[in-house]
């Protein structure tokens, strides 16, 4: 296969991965997997929001809970901005910031990571199929 195909293919995979990260389900949506994208988007976002509702914005803690924060970052880059806000400490906490809220938001992030990997793999298979055709 020519080098240009490989370059284009790698770029395509990166774009799909980024789309899947920016918006949960975005990668599958770009691959015309609309139903899959909607199921993923709704489930990941609802799980993340339930976590935020349970523990308030304090569940995103880039200072004292770095491993959890890394998992939460997999939800979307928007979590980074929430982390910047929560790091300032200038917010009211209406619940216990740890425990269940942290688990929900982190699991939502890890589920989205699974979807990112799946979207990139599906894109890779589609690319191979297109190259053979």
């Amino acid at each position: 296969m020519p080098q240009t195909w490989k370059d284009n293919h790698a770029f395509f995979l990166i774009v799909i991965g980024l789309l899947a990260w920016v918006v949960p389900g975005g990668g599958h949506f770009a691959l015309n997997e609309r139903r899959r994208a909607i199921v993923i988007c709704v489930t990941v976002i609802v799980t993340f929001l339930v976590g935020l509702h349970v523990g308030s914005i304090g569940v995103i803690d880039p200072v004292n809970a770095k491993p959890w924060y890394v998992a939460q970052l997999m939800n979307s880059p928007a979590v980074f901005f929430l982390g910047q806000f929560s790091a300032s400490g200038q917010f009211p906490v209406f619940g216990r910031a740890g425990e269940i809220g942290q688990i929900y938001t982190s699991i939502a992030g890890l589920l989205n990571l699974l979807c990112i990997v799946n979207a990139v793999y599906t894109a890779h298979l589609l690319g191979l199929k297109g190259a053979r055709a």
Partner: protein
Amino acid sequence: MRIDTNAASMLWLIPLVVAIAVVYKATKVHQIRAKAFAKETALLIGSIMVFITVAAFILYGVAWLVTEQLPAMAGGSAF
């Protein structure tokens, strides 16, 4: 939101299991058709719940043995 540390707080596990099962099945099934997807997801949710329940009973049994039975056999308290 206030969640107490009691047995009822374990119910917070259920929505999480549902989310995990739905997303996992969404990445695994060949095509998403409402009925088949719901059936497969329900099966996975059931499997996870049964496994967690069995694991909980086993752990409870081990904890009961260590904290109640072994000290009684040794003639004292574990704590």
